[in-house]
């Protein structure tokens, strides 16, 4: 084997070319410090995560309870959360004022419950809340106008929230605590002791909209997910298209005739990351999660190439490393790219016969061809035998 391939990427770069100082490079992100409060979060759920990965979303309150965090568990039933209207706004079916009012109502609900920190599960939400917050700063008189409209429409008052954080920020803040107190597995290959190579895919609206104020690490060196990978024993990969959009694109992915664009963007990322042999991809955006996962199947059908790198959300990763049941709690059966090969690498035990059961353990009806296809998917290229 060529000696070059045996060095890690950082070692290769500094040894051969002295292009950059590894330590300084590791610390560049610290320029962009984001203040994340320790406790007291008003949790807002995600629409897209609910559609594709319900186990992932149900894991968020479980994680918060595990860390003994104060979140909005005691809301009155008539003040429940709604979507932030981000997808409607970026899909251009609602006006900016409607979006401003929807977010204002959510802030009002949070303040009524006594929380000054908004913690959102979705990156589009995070983008929309940040954009709305920014508009109040840019446009004079907007706050008064929205105050009046909000009072007229549903009799509520609101203030601008003190902090807007993403749930991945919260998990980043508590990543060492999760590792030290609760995790029994690490991102290390069981047989060889090699740290697993992880790709951190941060949602565009998290780090590209307001890199200085809102993202942990800025637009280029965003640290929120790579910090988690490193803390939990893995190694992050740097590759040319690291900050390329996944291609979800709102109207591009959700209207079927346009989805070729999404597949093309995912393909571009896959082609770029493939030489670095990642073991998994971790995302914090539900939209990215869905499309990086699903379009790998489309790429297989169109190109014949199976990349099949498992795509996980950060809470699924945390849950798996803590030993939570992969099918009952974390919900890896919802993934198109099978996650079982990754569990094999880490050494997490699982019982695959339980993957497609219903809520009380009963078998769900399925055609034989479909059952075989689901078991075969993702195994053929890597030579993993069928169970």
């Amino acid at each position, binding site marked *: 084997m060529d000696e070059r391939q045996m060095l890690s990427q950082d070692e290769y770069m500094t040894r051969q070319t002295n292009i950059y100082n590894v330590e300084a490079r590791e610390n560049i992100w610290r320029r962009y410090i984001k203040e994340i409060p320790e406790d007291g979060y008003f949790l807002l759920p995600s629409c897209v995560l609910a559609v594709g990965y319900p186990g992932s979303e*149900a894991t968020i309150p479980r994680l918060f309870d595990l860390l003994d965090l104060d979140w909005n568990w005691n809301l009155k039933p008539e003040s429940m959360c709604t979507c932030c209207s981000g997808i*409607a706004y970026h899909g251009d079916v609602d006006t*900016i004022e409607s979006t401003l*009012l929807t977010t204002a109502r959510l802030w009002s609900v949070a303040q009524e419950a006594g929380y000054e920190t908004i913690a959102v599960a979705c990156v589009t939400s995070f983008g929309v809340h940040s954009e709305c917050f920014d508009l109040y700063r840019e446009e004079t008189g907007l706050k008064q106008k929205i105050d009046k*409209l909000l009072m007229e429409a549903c009799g509520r008052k609101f203030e601008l929230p003190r902090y807007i954080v993403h749930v991945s920020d919260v998990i980043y803040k508590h990543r060492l605590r999760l590792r030290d107190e609760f995790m*029994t597995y690490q991102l290390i290959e069981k047989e060889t002791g090699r740290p697993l190579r992880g790709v951190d895919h941060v949602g565009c609206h998290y780090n590209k909209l307001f890199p200085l104020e809102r993202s942990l690490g800025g637009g280029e060196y965003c640290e929120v997910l790579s910090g988690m990978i490193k803390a939990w024993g893995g190694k992050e990969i740097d590759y040319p298209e690291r900050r390329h959009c996944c291609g979800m694109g709102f109207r591009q992915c959700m209207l079927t005739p346009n989805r070729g664009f999404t597949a093309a963007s995912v393909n571009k990322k896959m082609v770029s990351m493939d030489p670095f042999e990642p073991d998994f991809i971790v995302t914090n955006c539900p939209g990215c999660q869905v499309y990086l996962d699903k379009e790998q199947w489309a790429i297989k059908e169109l190109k014949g190439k199976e990349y099949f790198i498992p795509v996980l959300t950060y809470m699924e990763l945390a849950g798996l490393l803590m030993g*939570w049941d992969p099918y009952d709690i974390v919900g890896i*059966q919802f993934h198109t790219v099978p996650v079982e090969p990754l569990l094999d690498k880490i050494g997490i035990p699982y019982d695959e016969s339980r993957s497609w059961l*219903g809520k009380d353990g009963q078998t769900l009806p399925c055609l034989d061809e479909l059952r075989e296809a689901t078991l075969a998917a993702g195994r053929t290229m890597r030579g993993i035998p069928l169970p």
Partner: protein
Amino acid sequence: MAKEEIKKGRTKPEDWPQDVYWKSGTYRERDGKASLDPARQCYPGQPSPPEDAVDEIDSPSEIPEEDLEPWFSREPSWHGRDAEKCRQYLDNLSDEEIINEYYKLRDEKVVWGGAYYYPNIKKLFLTPFEREKDRREIALWQKKYGKSETEEWYEEARDKSCVWWIENHLVAKHAFNSCMSCGTCTAACPAAEFYDYNPRLVMEIVQSRDEEKIVELLKSDTIWYCAQCGTCKLRCPRGNNPFAVISSLRQLSQLKGYHVYSTHGRQQYVGRHLWGGNYWNRGCSIYFRNTLLPFHLDFGPRFARYALNKDEMYRRVGGCPDMDGSMPGRKVHPDTLHQLRRLWQVGGTFVLWDQIEKYAREQAKEENMDIDDYFYKI
């Protein structure tokens, strides 16, 4: 077995005591009550059946998702839906009848797994019946509540020039200050790579303040290619926001009805009913059943298997598929939904929706097509 032993990783998961809440990720108790009732996934105070209620159904798959009537069908007429019968039926219903029938179906509930399950929501979403109900209901709301200040602004803006819009729309006026046409946005743009799209040219046209050129831009496919990712905003050396300009132009295009001139633009009729219909009726942007299997074959066989048994699989991981509660798939409380609807009305969205509806109907009539077939054709 001490928690310390477990923490230090000296034991295997199969040996852990089953009641250690943190091992399985169940919800923590506060004040003697579970913070989320894991069996019911409801907050205290949510509507829930009495403790001793018996399940009325074994599984939601007992209740068929499809209804044979053409106004509940999600197929176009060239796949067998009787468009004429559907149109006749819907046109003959009065406003009150259609609205009451919709909510009667929606709010029908059965007990399943110790909580209420609403079996008809899966029959109603994305159907001609729901679209007709939405149209009539919104017209009634406009009469009942009158126009807000924002709605009046949008109605005036509809008849003014494009250049006026760029200088006065809340998003457009803060989106760019001094574009120097460097092209960095285009170099970084993912859409520019795969589509015939150039954000630098769009910004140039907007800055030129040439009404004719802007109208031509609004009628073209160009502005609909943007993926709204924000890479242009990150890279712009002058702090401009090209994707917000695009967003503003898209709204203007729809207000003026120019969007129907382009292939991608007229898809907004679907967008209005897909996302807009979900918001209006379910308080979320994407309903978990929107990923219909025939349109998502690129999602693979594992997705197909999950799609055939969504309710059961949701419930297993702790979701609330078409049930009351706060977890994935939930049915939003009617009071919350009402508040959201009022906010959208007051924010001026009805003006946009009226325009989208109007131009879609005109185009469908020109093409001699039933409006629900138009929905599928585009």
